[in-house]
């Protein structure tokens, strides 16, 4: 009997100890403050020895390594330790973490819509003046708009990507004597020709599977068609819900994309029928372009990283890409794209200093030099772009003729942009009509 008297407190203490050790986050490894020779460029960011800034974003794997590399010198020179964490679950987890009071200091949002949700909920701190000034200097007013919520400026853009590239194998095109299409109609004609010519090759391959985000690559298709067929004004109205989601123009755009995606003869090279688009991972979907079971694949510039190691991405290499051609040429050279917005949950001196660095041209140049990404920062030297594709992307972004519009689903409220639009695409590919899908997305648009 005597023994049991001590058992409970000991057990309780054990549990407590376990809980404590689980809760106390690792205080971060020793940030070496070795004074580098070329720290003069970082003087304006001040000295913050021993301070830590936690950063959370969607960027993982090699991209994350490059990102950390791009602020290594900033860490060394300012004494700030950047604790970086990347997660594919960012879109949902950031909400969970903000609500539970464990938000990171800085979050890199891939969607302005999500940024707006977080800002309106009162979690985000407005951007400091230095950041706002840097953005005025380095970006076009459009980009500043994406970081502004209800008149308050919150977040600076970081990197940018261009969507709507159509990937193809130059060698296949050359062997078969196909030309890169200049208009949408030419592209459809070419697709029909491929479908008729070759039994073993489908004109297109596509994959929309992406875990709980399944469907998003399809939203890119629709956005590309809306912008190219109806121009930037209609696109802006659509995204801002000034015209309903089930406006005839939008439904018509679904049908136009459906000419390719819902046509058994057009898809899905190497994977199966139309519906196999839903069970094919977006990162693997392009592979059949290489082995010749499909001819074209629609995906953003980051597809360059999805090809197997050793694939030569160049105009005369294994794969290359052209921008989805115009549908109505009077509407200009339209491209959709995306980018990250850097928002902060804290406004301490070290966080502000880090935000200022990310908004600077120095950061853009440092990161782009490492390859794989570009930025719409005007201070970016195009010569720093590493690959042919990066150079092409910078050229498109910096071309004054380009009509650039941010990825629409990323601008819409999260209830649509990262929920019902994705789900709508899934239903659409799975057999629901364009009109029904548009109606159901329209009905999910938040009332307030």
């Amino acid at each position, binding site marked *: 009997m005597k023994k049991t008297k001590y058992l409970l407190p000991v057990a309780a203490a054990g549990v*407590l100890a376990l809980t404590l050790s689980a809760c106390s986050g690792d205080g971060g490894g020793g940030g070496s403050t070795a004074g580098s020779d070329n720290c003069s460029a970082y003087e304006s960011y001040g000295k913050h020895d021993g301070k830590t800034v936690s950063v959370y974003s969607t960027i993982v794997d090699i991209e994350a390594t490059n990102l950390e590399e791009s602020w290594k010198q900033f860490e060394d020179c300012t004494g700030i330790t950047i604790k970086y964490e990347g997660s594919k679950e960012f879109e949902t987890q950031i909400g969970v973490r903000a609500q539970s009071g464990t938000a990171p200091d800085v979050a890199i949002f891939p969607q302005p819509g999500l940024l707006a949700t977080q800002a309106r909920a009162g979690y985000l701190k407005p951007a400091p003046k230095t950041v706002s000034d840097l953005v005025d200097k380095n970006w076009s007013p459009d980009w500043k708009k994406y970081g502004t919520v209800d008149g308050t400026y919150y977040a600076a853009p970081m990197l940018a990507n261009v969507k709507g590239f159509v990937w193809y194998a130059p060698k296949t095109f050359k062997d078969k004597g196909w030309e890169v299409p200049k208009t949408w109609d030419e592209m459809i004609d070419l697709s029909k020709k491929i479908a008729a010519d070759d039994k073993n090759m489908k004109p297109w391959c596509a994959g929309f599977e992406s875990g709980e985000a399944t469907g998003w690559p399809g939203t890119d298709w629709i956005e590309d068609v809306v912008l190219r067929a109806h121009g930037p004004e209609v696109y802006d109205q659509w995204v801002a819900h000034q015209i309903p989601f089930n406006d005839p123009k939008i439904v018509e755009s679904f049908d136009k994309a459906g000419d390719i995606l819902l046509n058994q003869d057009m898809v899905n090279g190497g994977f*199966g029928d139309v519906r*196999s688009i839903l*069970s094919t991972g977006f990162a693997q979907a392009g592979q059949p372009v290489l082995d010749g079971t499909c001819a074209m694949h629609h995906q953003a510039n980051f597809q360059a990283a999805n090809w197997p190691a050793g694939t030569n991405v160049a105009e005369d290499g294994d794969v290359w890409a052209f921008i989805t051609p115009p549908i109505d040429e009077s509407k200009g050279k339209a491209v959709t794209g995306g980018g990250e917005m850097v928002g902060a949950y804290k406004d301490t001196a070290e966080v502000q200093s880090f935000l200022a660095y990310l908004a600077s041209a120095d950061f853009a140049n440092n990161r782009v030099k490492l390859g794989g990404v570009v930025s719409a920062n005007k201070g970016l030297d195009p010569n720093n772009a590493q690959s042919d594709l990066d150079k092409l992307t910078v050229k498109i972004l910096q071309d004054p003729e380009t009509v650039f519009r941010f990825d629409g689903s990323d601008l819409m*409220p999260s209830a649509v942009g990262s929920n019902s639009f994705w789900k709508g695409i899934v239903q659409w590919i799975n057999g629901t009509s364009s009109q029904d899908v548009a109606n159901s997305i329209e009905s999910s648009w938040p009332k307030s």
Partner: protein
Amino acid sequence: MEFIGGKLLQVVIALAIFAAVIGIIMLVVDRAPKSVKDRVTVAGFLAPAAILMLVGLVYPAIRTSTLAFTDASGNGNGFDNFVWMFTQPEALTTLRNTVIWTVLVPLLSTSFGLAYAVFIDKARGEKVLKSLVFMPMAISFVGAGIIWKLVYDYRGPGIEQTGVLNFFRDALGMDPKQFLLDAPENTFFLIIVMVWIQTGFAMVILSAAIKGVPVELVEAARLDGANAWQQFRNVTIPGIRGALVVVLTTITIATLKVFDIVRTMTAGNYDTSVVANEMYTQAFRAGEPGRGAALALVLFLMVLPIVVYNARVLRKQREIH
């Protein structure tokens, strides 16, 4: 090294504080005047648990309940969220699926578990046979989801199949099937995963209960000329009723909360969503915490009667013994 030392020190300090607090409570309780001693003792030992209950259970429950009547920007909107839940076709599908899950999973896993427990009872190699069925219990729902997703994998006709089931269909000359995309049967393919996990649990508990049925009763029944089915029906079943209720209710509650399997395998697409998954999606991805809270509330109301029933049966049994 110094990093680990710091952590150890933290633990030691925390333990010391904990011991001190408990010590003080014990001291106070011990020193209390005789007249109020009992009440102080009860209060002294219940208070910490009660406070944790309030902070960890009661407060969130109240907060969720109020949240259920607000819109995305936190303003009250009356019963809008509930109206949405019972009118939107998508939300209705979610409710329908949850009902299908809660009916099928406990029924199937308990029947399979019971049948298996009866058949291998006293068989040679019982332990090995048992552990074979029990093993899936050790796999997390997410892990099981990923395993079965590979089993259901699909490639078009004429392309080399990567999924086990479609490989066999192919070998038998049938067309491959999109197991996870074809509604409504895809819900049943997901349910199989949960049954696969829970059967082991049911089997272990029921097997133990069967062994607890008095041998005398079984022998008496046999002497009376009861055949195997009659023995099972009239002796074994009444003998394990308590265990059956526990197994059924436990699995039912687990099934009502099912989330990981659906989220890993279909993310609620293709008409397979269930309440717990939709709750998470609405609250954290769609930025509609009100709708999420409303779904949570409905889920809570669905679980409540089962918990009450479970507690009742257990209490009744204790009275008998």
